[in-house]
């Protein structure tokens, strides 16, 4: 365990860990959007900015990507940090004025008006969906398209995301809840990725339990017998 200080409070972190998880563990609140423990930190939302002092030098950096180092001093509530965070949430709010979570966060940080040109996007470009798709699911179905201010998270070439297995991990992980899933009859649709998959029906009970495409893929990868997914999880003995 590596000892260091956050806001004057002594804490300990694991080697290879990051400042944000240690802070959250110690009950020190740092706002964050793009951080999820199941994937590598990415530093996209910039909301977890903190001031880190190391060897007499102080710099503003994201807590989620800053490694735990011995003897560093982290400050989460200085005037500089709060001002930078307010600016960032204002920029995010200007990009996505309709997101409930962003509005709440902005209000909490004391941002009531947006000074910038408002856009009507709903995605905050944190990239969590694509990172989860890559690192947790391994489907590589979606990725960022374009660069700079035109950057977007869209299905490949704005068509159907052909690698998507409709597992719904991105639906659950999305911090602003803009990836929606619909289930109607024997079809499951991930609306944002324009992916509609037929669901497989259990041979015993007749319930639809998972998409065909997904099960075929699993069967392929794990080299299971042909009839392995004929029955649903409950009916399997």
């Amino acid at each position, binding site marked *: 365990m590596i000892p260091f200080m956050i806001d004057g409070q002594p804490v300990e972190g694991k080697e290879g860990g990051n400042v944000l998880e240690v802070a*959250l*563990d110690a*009950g020190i*609140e740092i706002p964050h959007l793009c951080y*999820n*423990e*199941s994937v590598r930190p990415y530093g996209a939302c910039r909301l977890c900015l903190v001031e880190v002092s190391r060897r007499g030098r102080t710099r503003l950096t994201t807590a989620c990507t800053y490694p735990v180092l011995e003897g560093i001093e982290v400050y989460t509530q200085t005037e500089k940090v709060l001002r930078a965070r307010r600016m960032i949430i204002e920029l995010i709010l200007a990009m996505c004025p309709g997101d409930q979570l962003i509005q709440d966060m902005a209000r909490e940080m004391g941002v009531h008006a947006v000074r910038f040109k408002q856009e009507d996007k709903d995605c905050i470009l944190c990239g969590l969906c694509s990172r*989860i798709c890559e690192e*947790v*699911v391994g489907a590589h179905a979606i990725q960022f398209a374009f660069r700079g201010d035109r950057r977007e998270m869209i299905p490949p070439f704005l068509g159907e995301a052909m690698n998507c297995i409709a*597992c*719904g*991990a991105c*639906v*659950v*992980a999305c911090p602003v809840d803009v990836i929606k*899933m*619909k*289930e109607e009859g024997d079809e499951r649709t991930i609306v944002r990725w324009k992916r509609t998959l037929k669901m497989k029906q259990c041979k015993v*009970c*007749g*319930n*639809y*339990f*998972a998409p065909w495409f*997904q099960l075929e893929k*699993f069967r392929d990868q794990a080299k299971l017998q042909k009839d392995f997914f004929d029955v649903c*999880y*409950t009916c399997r003995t």
Partner: protein
Amino acid sequence: MTEKLNVFAVRTLTQKEYFAPGHRACQGCAEVLAVRLVAKALGRNVIVSNATGCMEIVSSPLPFTSWRVPWFHVAFENTAAVASGIEAGLKVLMRKGRIPRKKIVSLAMAGDGGTADIGLQALSGALERGHDFIYICTDNEAYMNTGIQRSSSTPFGASTTTSPAGKVQIGQITWKKNMAAIAAAHNIPYVATACPSYPIDLVQKVKKAAEIEGPAYIHILSVCPTGWRSAPELSIKLGRLAAETGVFPLYEVDHGKYRLSIDFPKLKPVKEYIKLQGRFRHLTDDMIEQIEKRIRKEYEELKEKAAKGARDDSNRG
């Protein structure tokens, strides 16, 4: 819509355990799984008041504890009263500036005995007063920790030590008390039923309950292999079967509007659920049919309410 997600979605939940392993729950206990998921969903800003019961016994054998969040053991009768007191206390402390302003959830947790029998009046009072807290009932359908005595949540026909099946009686002769409906009748903002066999669904319901201002009640069916006389490895399956046969439909009541979380095109026969449990082994086919009839009727009623909720939604939208 997230009930059938079970492959990768669960891996996006936090890996931190606020309910530590090494507790003394029985093999195959689904209740402890439910509690672990609830703790995961709420994170560390929570104060738990836990009534006497299985979860209190297994998680706090002196000098150990499984809880990594503040936790109270309270009597059977006053779980909801203590939770509402905690909520009121936090509110005052924040107003006076003694602690920083942030969202701290007051969570009350009790078994079916502590909810449907003994703690009912405190619960009703707290719901009526409108405290901002979550009440979670982990329902294993009898007083399991003292040795399987019947409670008012025990289903019809189940054999327990105080409602034994024999020549005179067929086990429990009353029907299961519908606690979720009682809670919904208080007109509180959020009531839901959940089951740890559907983990993402449970986590999302708990998160929603924490977000909503005002009281929220969540009824969690927790399979108890010891008391139900079922095989420990079947706990998850039994939870699924309970939902799929309509014995324990998963639904939520959001501001008075019913919504079925998972709607099966065809319900499985109740017999599939019953035959896996030793507590129902004495039931004849006639009795099972009687049970099925009642369950189907209740399910239809629920479906009607859900359809009405959906109609209201579309009218407004």
